[in-house]
């Protein structure tokens, strides 16, 4: 029996393993859905605006607020309507430009009142920051990013009463949308989950049925069995993820070399998943337990690796743990290649992934030989 026979046999088993594929694909697809839901709740906050003064200064203030469509999903209404919206949670805050606004501006002590439903600090602080900026723009219309240098020329500064202006220098030419940025790791979660659960499931089934022991009595070498199995798993995982990679390459306008790098990272992540799946199968030995343990393991690898989290935001001890998680290198490498004009330390990312994949497959292969 050669490795190709094992390869063909395993491909046939993968094709019949609908239950396992469902178990492996449901969690990452659900994560993808979660990212989509998250895009609806980040950025713009629902706010009611009540304008009680119709003088020119109040109109300027109202225009500043209504034109900031990045920060607010604004609904103009009267005071009663705003109170009703706040009580029924249709808005998170009510901003009021009071009746004497114009007169107070002339005296230099005008206020914009806002009432905040501060049930949690995350969106509460988003609104506080946005209102502060809007209010500042009344006296300093060019305060904020973008406007300063444009107005003053490259060397000048636009004076403002706050006596501090901002010169923004962005690291990249374009911004990446929240959805694209967070969907990149989901692409890796798919291969990780299918790789880990798939090969873990098949191997656990072989351990349970005694097929592994039977294989030892055949003339096939351990190497050909292992390579056939790993090759089949990588082939299936690559096929499953190919549409996602193609979509990413198309939407991010990746050139051929970058698309190849993305595909390489995906295959290497799958190889890490395959190695870890073999180790999980050796420990738990029953398909049901392997599925549960594999799903949990993938979740940890995903979150600690920077999927939905930005490693830089974590406490230093968690960053240290994260440094030992192979998916951190996979996710970092993928984001570097997909989004960064000059990708950095991709070679390190690839080296770590290759090392972990080879080491885990070698350890698992040795363990399986003993188990057989």
């Amino acid at each position, binding site marked *: 029996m050669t490795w190709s026979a094992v390869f063909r046999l395993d491909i046939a088993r993968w094709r019949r393993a609908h239950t396992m594929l469902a178990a492996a694909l449901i969690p990452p697809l659900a994560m993808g859905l979660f990212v989509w839901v998250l895009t609806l709740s980040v950025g713009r906050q629902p706010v009611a605006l009540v304008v009680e003064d119709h003088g020119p200064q109040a109109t300027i203030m109202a225009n500043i607020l209504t034109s900031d469509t990045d920060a607010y999903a604004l609904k103009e209404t009267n005071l009663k309507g705003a109170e009703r919206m706040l009580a029924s949670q249709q808005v998170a805050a009510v901003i009021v430009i009071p009746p004497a606004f114009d007169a107070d501006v002339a005296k230099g002590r005008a206020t914009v009142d806002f009432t905040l439903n501060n049930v949690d600090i995350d969106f509460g602080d988003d609104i506080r920051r946005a209102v502060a900026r809007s209010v500042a723009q009344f006296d300093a219309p060019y305060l904020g990013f973008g406007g300063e240098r444009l107005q003053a020329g490259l060397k000048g500064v636009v004076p403002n009463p706050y006596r501090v202006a901002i010169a923004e220098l962005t690291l990249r030419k374009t911004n990446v949308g929240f959805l694209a940025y967070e969907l990149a790791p989901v692409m890796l979660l798919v291969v990780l989950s299918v790789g880990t659960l798939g090969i873990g499931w098949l191997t656990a089934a072989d351990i349970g049925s005694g097929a592994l022991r039977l294989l030892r009595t055949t003339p096939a070498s351990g190497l050909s069995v292992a390579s056939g199995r790993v090759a089949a798993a990588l082939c299936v995982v690559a096929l499953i993820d190919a549409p996602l990679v193609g979509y990413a390459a198309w939407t991010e306008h990746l050139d051929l070399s970058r698309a190849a790098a993305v595909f390489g990272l995906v295959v290497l992540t799958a190889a890490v998943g395959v190695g870890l799946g073999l180790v999980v199968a050796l420990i738990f030995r029953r398909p049901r337990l392997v599925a549960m343990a594999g799903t949990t393991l993938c979740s940890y690898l995903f979150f600690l690796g920077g999927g939905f989290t930005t490693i830089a935001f974590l406490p230093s001890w968690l960053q240290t743990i994260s440094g030992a998680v192979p998916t951190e290198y996979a996710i970092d490498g993928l*984001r570097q290649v997909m989004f960064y004009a000059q990708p950095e330390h991709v070679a390190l990312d690839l080296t770590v992934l290759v090392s972990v994949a080879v080491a885990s497959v070698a350890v698992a292969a040795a363990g399986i030989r003993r188990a057989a």
Partner: protein
Amino acid sequence: MAGDLRSTCGASWRVELAHLRRSWLFLALAFVQGMSFLVLVSLFALTGSRAPTALINSDGSPPSLQFVKDLKAAHGSFSIRPMTAGQARSELDAGRIVAIITIPKGFGASVSRGETALLQVDIDNVDTDMTDDLERAVPSAIVLFGNHYHFAGIRVSSTEHDEIPHDTGYIEYLIVSSLALDVLVVAGVVAGAAVAREWESGTAAVWKTTGSATGFVLGKVAAASAVGAAGAVPPLLLVVLAYRVTPVDWGGAIATLAGCCVLFACTGAALGALIKRVVPTAALLFGLAIPLYMDSGALEPERFDGNKIWSLAHLSPLYSVVGVLEDVFHGLHVTPEPVTADVVMMVAWTLAMFITAGWLAGRRLSA
């Protein structure tokens, strides 16, 4: 008929407990899966604020030090890390910080002369969400700075009125609702596996002879609820002792979690009877847990995301559960409906799920 129900329920309960006693590894993994959500939700919450930002203060004058204070006070926007220009550049390039704020030499002198100093902000704009946050946060710090010194020419300020006298931290807010997620996974997976296993292992035929599908489901649900309750104790202790979130209503918190155990055990039993396979049932519960959680008001009151998403949220029992949990733990009202309506919805969901599980099991057993 009542005798059938009682004896079948008793038998189902005893069989399940005996099985669970032998499946300690399965139980342990279910507990670990449930607890994982608490950890993962905390990780997610950590990224919600305090952007790691390098600060290069080339001035050192009192106004520059005041500005640093204002950056730190700018609504949880920054985690300020003083460093040299070289260190900052290398950290930014490596993606370990998201921005560099440089206070130039002569900042204090310019401000004292009444001139406007130019603050340089280098920003890693790879993700628009983070960029937007920073583009609001720096002006917010500048406003605090201007208001501190009462500079002439500032004619407008904002006055904030909070509906609640104290802010609730993001982790504290999220961690409470993740308790529901923990119970969903533990009680749901155990009940789903208990019901599905009977078909997978071919023992469903034995239950046909008892004549009471309701009793069969009731026994499984009772056992799974008991396991779910046991599984909810460690995360509850973790929330109280490690996260220091103490319920404002202890009785309500325990009753709600107990109610969650029954509700999610019924949900798991219904899915188990529908799918009849253990692994897909467990995977479906695990996979659906996070999206359902996100659309339940766990991140913020769900109606803030718009009426469509809010309406969809009512299709998940987690919406009512999160509404009740936030009330009993923090005293917060995160649903427009009154809390009593959320409690009624929880009970209605439980009954609906139990009836569905009984009906599906009955159909499957009589097939």
